């Protein structure tokens, strides 16, 4: 039972054709890493998975992205609804500066239009912060502004914010590339813990990170899939020479 399936996906920025015929499958409870050199289209690809790509003026998508069997690009599908079930964490942590730590964590719930009691909100906020591995560090200062945390903590706050709306898939767009090595490893540890309950797709330019963290790896070049397979295979005996050259550092 596939959680996410991409079928023949093409994407454009205006007349610039950036993704060519992408096919990809992600099973539930797995971590899929997307790797490739700069400009290969990995960020564009992940943004097509929660319909963020089309937020850019002139951007366009063709093809299917099936989520639990339903095409998220179908005519009667609301992108806003898609994004509540497929969450995203960005490269640079972007906590809302006018909100406190707890308010940041519960922002998706509070602003959803659903009426939720304050006590329930606090409970869900706490759970999300715990799942993001941040609770112990902030439990005594939930009212402080989100911007006062360190970089790694802010990123975990953004992860908590994404988790609080209880999505089924989490997309991570180079979540650790702006962080120091220790924070990076913490985020990787977190991904390992989260994959029990979520399906995770992570874009990374750090190959070792992809190797450490993922079950499946997709290697992209110039907007096309070169190789998609179990991570162990991609890093020990890849099928395609281009993959081999990339992971051994001969180019990229």
């Amino acid at each position, binding site marked *: 039972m596939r959680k996410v399936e991409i079928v023949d996906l093409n994407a454009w920025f205006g007349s610039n054709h950036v993704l060519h015929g992408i096919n990809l499958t992600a099973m539930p409870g797995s971590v899929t890493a997307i790797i490739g050199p700069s400009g290969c289209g990995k960020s564009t690809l992940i943004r097509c998975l929660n319909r963020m790509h089309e937020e850019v003026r002139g951007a366009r998508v063709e093809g299917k992205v099936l989520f639990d069997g339903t095409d998220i690009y179908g005519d009667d599908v609301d992108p806003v609804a898609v994004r509540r079930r497929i969450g995203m964490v960005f490269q640079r942590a*972007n906590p809302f500066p006018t909100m406190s730590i707890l308010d940041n964590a519960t922002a*998706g719930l509070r*602003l959803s239009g659903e009426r939720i009691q304050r006590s329930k909100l606090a409970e869900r906020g706490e759970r999300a912060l715990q799942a993001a591995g941040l609770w112990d560090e902030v439990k005594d200062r939930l009212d402080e502004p989100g911007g006062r945390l360190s970089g790694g903590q802010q990123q975990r706050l953004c992860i908590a914010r994404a988790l609080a709306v209880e999505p089924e898939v989490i997309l991570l767009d180079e979540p650790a590339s702006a962080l120091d090595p220790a924070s990076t490893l913490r985020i990787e540890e977190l991904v390992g813990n989260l994959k029990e309950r979520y399906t995770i797709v992570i874009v990374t330019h750090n190959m070792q990170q992809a190797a450490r963290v993922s079950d499946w790896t997709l290697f992209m070049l110039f907007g096309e899939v070169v190789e998609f397979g179990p991570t162990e295979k991609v890093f020990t005996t890849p099928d395609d020479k281009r993959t081999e050259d990339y992971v051994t550092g001969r180019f990229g």
Partner: protein
Amino acid sequence: MSATSGAVSLGPVRGVRHVKDVGFTVFLWTCAVLALVPLTWIAFYVVSKGIGALSWNFFTKEPAGPLNPQEGGIVQSFIGTGLIVGIATVIAVPLGILAGIYLAEYGKGPTASAIRLVAYVLLSTPSIVAGAFIWALVVVALGNFSALAGGLSLVVLMWPIVAIASEAVLRLVPQELREGALALGLPRWKTILRVVMPTAGAGLLTAVMLAVARALGETAPILLTALGNDFINTDFRAPTDAVPLRVYDYARTPVEALHSIAWGGALVLLAAVLFLAISARVLSNRQQKRMA
């Protein structure tokens, strides 16, 4: 400067270069001081001339009869300015902010360019032209001068400031915040209302304060639209007084006592505008720190 040895001297700056350094620094300081002179001179002058007129009567009484002009006040001007600028603010600010939001968040097509053009043109429109325009449109149609017409003429001048300044502030809100909100499953309008605008918060307030500061001092458009009044008026359909108008009127009379009151009015205006401008600056600094 070192001679033939080729070794670079690491000592202090000396000689001709030092003189040039000092000379240029002195020159720059002199320019700065000179630039400050007019402002400080005006301020001191107005304060010295106007401080004497400030009194209880000044703030609470209407103009007195010709026999004892110094006993009167200009309370109707303060109330009138409040009414006129209030009407203008209530109309210009929401329209201006909405325009700012449109330009910042949706603003790439021909409509946006048109709106932006209108705003920039209105920004440099002479205020008397604004007054004449509203006179033709509103005063003639209603048949009389009014606070409403006065307010509307100020809207013409305030709206572009609010629109352009809010667009600028909203553009400064990092795109990543919008993306973060959208990715959470918030619709665009909620993203703007609950995330972008609060973040720009102080900046938007600054835009409003700058527009109000401009409006407070306008005389020409008020002349053509609100006409002025010696008595307190709270009916927006009737002629109303305003502080700058009153200052203009009194300055033209030969009565010495009224001159003194005019200086008082000028002082109050100057103080209000300075207060708004300085507060706007302080808020803007804090806003910048928050977004950094």
